[in-house]
């Protein structure tokens, strides 16, 4: 019991250490800083999805919508309204939250595959809007000719535009805050009602938990952080890509969560790291990199249904 706690703290410490020092060692292992930033952004999105998937037991196949709303919210704000990174973030996240709140109300009474299908359907609506509304969103070409702006604190200036390392830490800051909030939520009485719903919805209802309302809240929290990840992704590329809204992107988040292990808090981070690294490496060799990722995914699901972290955890506890 105490042994297990030590392992947990040691693992937490190791993960934070690796994240904090990533720009310093990533080049040594064949990566580059932007790749590290991409891992952190995708990890945030996957962990946000997993708040809903792994801890509430609700599968969304439409999280790309809220990710993409973050992307476009940030991009459009900077391009057309105010050249301010933080304003762009605020608008992006707010757009995702409002959309998630309204759509959530319409769908939280659905369960299982029906819920997943409807999340895809709503997600595709946003994709087609971005795709068709050429003169504002850039349509299929995406929204370009804008970029993230350095951040002025008055007394100091953080040049996230020209320094990839500064931008990495800027992203990591929001990652840390988001992850800390999600972890705290999961340890709260509210978080435990979500576990209850995941474990047994009927029992949860007969304990007097208004299940649909709690699922709506979990959905909203999840979509908020996915939207935040979207804004960071837009800044990473200085570009808004309509494919970030496409249902395939939702699938990628699910793959990351399942790959790493959706029953563990850090699982989706591991999944995102593997996915992004594989994508980066394999796509330099072949156009069909998705087939390799697909194959890897199938193998993991077949032989390690609890994901990469699930395997490691079983090994250490037995």
């Amino acid at each position, binding site marked *: *019991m105490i042994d297990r706690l030590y392992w947990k703290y040691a693992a937490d410490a190791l993960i934070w250490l690796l994240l904090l020092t990533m720009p310093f060692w990533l080049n040594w292992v064949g990566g580059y800083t932007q790749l590290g930033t991409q891992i952190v952004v995708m990890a945030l999105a996957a962990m946000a999805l997993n708040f809903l998937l792994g801890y509430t037991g609700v599968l969304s196949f439409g999280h790309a919508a809220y990710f993409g709303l973050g992307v476009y919210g940030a991009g459009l704000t900077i391009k057309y309204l105010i050249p301010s990174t933080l304003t762009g973030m605020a608008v992006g996240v707010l757009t995702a939250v409002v959309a998630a709140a309204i759509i959530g109300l319409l769908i939280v009474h659905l369960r299982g595959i029906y819920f997943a299908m409807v999340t895809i359907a709503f997600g595709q609506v946003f994709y087609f809007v971005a795709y068709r509304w050429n003169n504002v969103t850039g349509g299929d070409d995406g929204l370009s000719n804008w970029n993230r702006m350095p951040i002025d604190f008055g007394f100091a200036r953080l040049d996230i535009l020209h320094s990839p390392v500064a931008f990495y830490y800027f992203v990591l800051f929001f990652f840390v805050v988001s992850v800390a909030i999600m972890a*705290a*939520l999961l340890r*709260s*009485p*509210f978080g*435990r*009602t979500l*576990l*209850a719903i995941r*474990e*047994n919805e*009927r*029992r949860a*209802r*007969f*304990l*007097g*938990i*208004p*299940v649909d309302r*709690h699922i709506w809240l979990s959905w909203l929290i999840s979509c908020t952080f996915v939207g935040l990840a979207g804004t960071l992704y837009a800044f990473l590329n200085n570009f808004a890509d309509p494919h970030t809204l496409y249902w395939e992107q939702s699938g990628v988040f699910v793959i990351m969560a399942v790959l790493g292990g959706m029953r563990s808090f850090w699982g989706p981070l591991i999944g995102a790291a593997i996915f992004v690294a594989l994508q980066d490496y394999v796509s330099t060799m072949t156009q069909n990199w998705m087939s390799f990722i697909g194959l890897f995914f199938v193998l993991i699901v077949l032989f390690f249904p609890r994901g990469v972290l699930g395997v490691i955890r079983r090994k250490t506890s037995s």
Partner: protein
Amino acid sequence: MSLLRVENVTKNFGSLTAVSEVSMKVEAGELMAVIGPNGAGKTTFFNLISGFQTPSSGRIIFDDEDVTRLLPARRVWRGMTRTFQITEVFPELTVRENLQIAVEVASGFRLRLWQSRDAAAKVTARVDELLDMSGLSGKAGRLVGELAHGDQRATEIMMSIALKPRLLLLDEPTAGMGDQETYDITQLIRKLHRDQELSIVLIEHDMRVVFHLADRIMVLAEGAMLAEGTPHEIAANEAVQAAYLGKAAA
């Protein structure tokens, strides 16, 4: 005034009438058993009381309030909890966590995003009390899904008790259990009924359990009420004997 009054409830599934014009009264502190042959409509009757299904006609009055069309969660808030024939627990959480969630919900903490040390200590104390009461203390750290059937059932009952109900509905609490487990669960129900003065309605197949526990018994057959009375009266009732023995002979 009766704690629970069921007035002429009927439930149709298409052309099938599962429950037909059944009425029942449960007084505060009473333990009422509902028995009857397979397919008599006992579980449907239970589902109507607990809000899992709504009646086609008739009324259900709980504590002077018409709850006929209230959602299950709202009936729980008013003090009516239930267990299921197939145990409904949180299998991948520990016994302690199962009870902790129930206690937190009962304390009105379900939307709290953080907890004071004081509140957490109160929850823990209450969980310990429930563990003690049920004899599950030694298994508090185990995952419920790994426990024996009887212990899972005891966990489920204690989760319901955590909500401080005024009426507890037990759907076949000893279904699928061996003699020792049946005995333990029976003792637990008896203790809750006596010590907590809890009103209980239970469905049960095991007649030893029924006659050991019940203050009054209601017999259902083919969706309708066949008889109602004290265990003594029911044992002597010819219609009841015919219904049971008739089935057995056929």
